[in-house]
């Protein structure tokens, strides 16, 4: 049986790969672990080591060809095996993939799922595999869109630079709209280096800004100029610093911008009376010493219970379809050094309060020490973010795809409340649900919040 090698995922953010060079030519033998090819990803050129052994029978793409992940790129098999029919079939597929590029279609299923499907495993496993595949696909889609945008931006920028090169760099104007006199060369250097010409003093004839006026500008001067008001750097003050953006920050930035831009957010806010919840927590913690249950655990459990009756809230937008998740994949935000991450409690509806609390602690701890595996923080169906411990009364959060909703939990506070027509000291907590309106309409979200409030205010419901 010949083996079809597909474009591998060599980095988290990789959506497509470009073949830089075949390291094994057609007819050459290859052992698992040998370098088959050099692949250019979005980040770098990386060596692709073969998972399989055999003889390279057919290269399906050539150096310079770019194909989406999962596209067949090569056929391995036994020496002199006839794969001409398969090769022709696959060549057609490759052609199509290259022509379509990275359209709106979901990216090909990850190889894991495919393999399982091919091998015809038990239906349950298959379903699980499918599920994973779809989660993966959802993410891929997101990444894909971000990538497309980045590409467009890149094109725009390139076009702009091109225009600056070939068109004449336009003469800048100062605050009063007067033309700033600058030579074409100075204008171009300023544009390339991000120098604001209105802040530059020209030394050419009649104050014209010339090359030497801009090429000698210090980087700090440029940054200060770009920032507009440049506070005079006092001797004692801390100087401005430019910190390199880490890969994690980049990912956070990209995903949040993407989520905030793509999902039409709206917010539902509600104050919950927590008198009984406080009492329940005290009782729970008094009656067992396995684990100290936190308010957050209780809120998460309440979400799980409420979500059972609200499949439209336990859902996510996928472009052509909306996915109602079978189980509750409960994400929760954890602050870590230089960023945040949202580990996911899998199938939370099958877990009791204590088991979930244990899992949350474990996931949070491993998140902080950077030991989470990718699958442990992907594919949440609903998310909870809690800033109550910082005393934040209420806030709104950005949706964490593929989930359509995120619950922002404020601090538990003592507040005057009206009870039976009289003022009393109450324990309250503000909740704010951010919803993706493509999936969750106002009434749908509100109904969920109403139930959530009821559960929290009458916490015996948590047992349900």
């Amino acid at each position, binding site marked *: 049986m010949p083996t079809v090698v597909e474009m591998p995922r060599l980095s988290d953010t990789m959506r497509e790969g470009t073949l830089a060079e075949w390291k094994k030519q057609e007819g050459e033998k290859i052992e698992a672990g040998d370098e088959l090819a050099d692949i250019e990803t979005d980040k770098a050129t990386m060596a692709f080591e073969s998972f399989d052994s055999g003889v390279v029978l057919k290269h399906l793409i050539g150096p310079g060809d770019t194909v989406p992940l999962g596209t067949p790129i090569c056929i391995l098999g036994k020496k002199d095996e006839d794969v001409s029919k398969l090769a022709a079939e696959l060549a057609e597929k490759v052609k199509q993939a290259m022509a379509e590029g990275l359209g709106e279609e979901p990216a090909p299923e990850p190889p894991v799922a495919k393999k399982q499907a091919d091998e015809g495993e038990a239906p349950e496993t298959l379903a699980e595999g499918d599920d994973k595949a779809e989660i993966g696909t959802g993410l891929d889609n997101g990444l894909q869109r971000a990538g497309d945008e980045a590409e467009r931006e890149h094109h725009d920028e390139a076009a702009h630079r091109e225009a600056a090169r070939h068109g004449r760099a336009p003469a800048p104007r100062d605050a009063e709209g007067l033309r700033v006199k600058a030579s074409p*060369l100075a204008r171009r250097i300023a544009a*390339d280096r991000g120098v604001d010409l209105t802040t530059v003093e020209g030394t050419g004839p009649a104050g014209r800004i010339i090359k030497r006026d801009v090429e000698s500008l210090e980087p700090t001067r440029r940054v200060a100029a770009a920032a507009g008001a440049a506070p005079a750097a006092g001797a004692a003050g801390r100087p401005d610093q430019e910190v390199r953006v880490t890969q994690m920050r980049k990912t956070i930035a990209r995903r949040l911008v993407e989520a905030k831009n793509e999902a039409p957010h709206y917010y539902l806010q509600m104050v919950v009376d927590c008198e009984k919840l406080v009492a329940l927590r005290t009782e729970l913690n008094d009656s067992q010493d396995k684990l100290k249950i936190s308010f957050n655990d209780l809120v998460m459990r309440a979400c799980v219970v409420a979500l059972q009756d609200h499949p439209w809230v336990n859902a996510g937008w996928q472009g052509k379809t909306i996915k109602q998740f079978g189980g509750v994949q409960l994400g929760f935000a954890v602050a870590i050094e230089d960023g945040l991450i949202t580990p996911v409690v899998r199938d939370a509806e099958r877990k009791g309060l204590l088991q979930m609390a244990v899992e949350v602690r474990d996931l949070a701890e491993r998140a902080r020490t950077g030991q989470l595996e990718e699958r442990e923080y992907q594919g949440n169906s609903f998310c909870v973010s809690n800033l109550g411990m910082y005393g934040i009364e209420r806030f709104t959060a950005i949706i964490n795809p593929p989930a359509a909703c995120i619950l922002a939990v404020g601090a538990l506070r003592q507040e005057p409340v009206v009870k039976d027509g009289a003022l009393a000291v109450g324990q309250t907590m503000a909740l704010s649900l951010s919803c993706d309106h493509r999936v969750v309409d106002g009434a749908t979200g509100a109904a969920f919040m109403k139930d959530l409030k009821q559960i929290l205010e009458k916490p015996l419901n948590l047992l349900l």
Partner: protein
Amino acid sequence: MAEDNNAFDLVVIGGGPGGYVAAIRAAQLGLKTACVERDKLGGVCLNWGCIPTKALLHNAKLYQELSHGKTWGFEVDGLRVDWPKVIQRSRKVADRLNKGVHGLFKKYGVTHIAGEGRIDRPGRVLVGDRALSCKHIIVATGARPRPLPGLAFDGERVMSSKEAMVVDPMPESVLVIGGGAIGSEFAYFFNAFGSKVTQVELLDRILPVEDREVSEALQRSFKRQGLEVLTGTVAADVEVTEGGVRARLKPASGDGEGEVREFSRVLVAIGVVGNTEGLGLEGVGVELDRGMIKVNEDLRTTCPGIYAIGDVAGPPWLAHKASAEGIHCVERIAGHAGKPVDKTNIPGCTYCEPQVASVGLTEELARERNIPLKIGKFPFSASGKALALEEKEGFVKVLFDERTGELVGCHIIGPGATELIAEAALARTLEATEAEILGTIHAHPTLAEALHEAVGQAFGEGVNF
């Protein structure tokens, strides 16, 4: 009280293209100015250099073209050179311009004082028995051809450019020592009028300050025209004989004894010596550097109130550099901002055929400075206008800084090169990038299109090549 006609704001010593221009500009700016000149106003440039040589060189070109009348469809029988008339025409051009300077002095109120000026002390210049008092002194005395050691110019067998200009009759054979602009112009000139010319240059190419490709193209052209060009060669043991001169032409590397050759005459064009003698410079503490007066950016010497411009203030030894320095110096004296002379942006021209002109850095120098380059080259053989003129030789070469689009250098060899270079110099002064040059419509058909096309070649937008 009668006006003191020996009191001036400024006295300029020397009336060449540096001195007379400085004097006129000073008068325009309201300074009472005198210009002291021991010979003719206009200096070497106008009387014995640039202008009369260009008149002669044009004659040479015409003669060459007429000699090849058939190319043009002319049957020219019995073409004869009236040599004295050729010389005379060149002298007439010089005289006319000399009169022009006198006219300009009158027009702007510059006092011309004939005689040799000598600085007595700062603020006092002696001319004969006349003592001029002044606030400022500009030394613009120029330079003279440098003789070979032990071989004085005799105006007969051993010529400098000055004698070569009025040579009569045409020598049968000439040894031209020097591959610079003057050597190359005269080598071309003598060859065009039928002398047997041997040009020797110490370095490995003629016009060594030009771009290597240009030097090589000129050398090939000279050889085609029948000149003998010996690079990497020194002329040793040059001596005057009864019939002419004798020299040993040997490799500069020192390998071998070389060959002893006889020529009718020798032209020595190996550079210049500053005219610093007899000016009283030592007495006032004006320092020299390698025979030239040391100056700062504003042309001030080491003695306050005394300035120096032009050839006597160091290289490049070009009339237009002297004029530019004269103007800046005077504007500074008059309290203006002036126009500092940017020595990286002085065009250099050689008026042989094919002509050579350049401004900015050569490719070699640019690479030495690690400037990443975009280079464009356009041959005149692809220019319609050049073909119409039957001048297919040469090319325009442009160098751009790849990072910024700055025109780093422009090198032209071929028809009209010395005229075309002005566009490149202007582009550099205005700091135009390739976008402005490409965006400027160049008339068709013109030789100037070649520059436009060369820029296009550098940026992948060339159309006609």
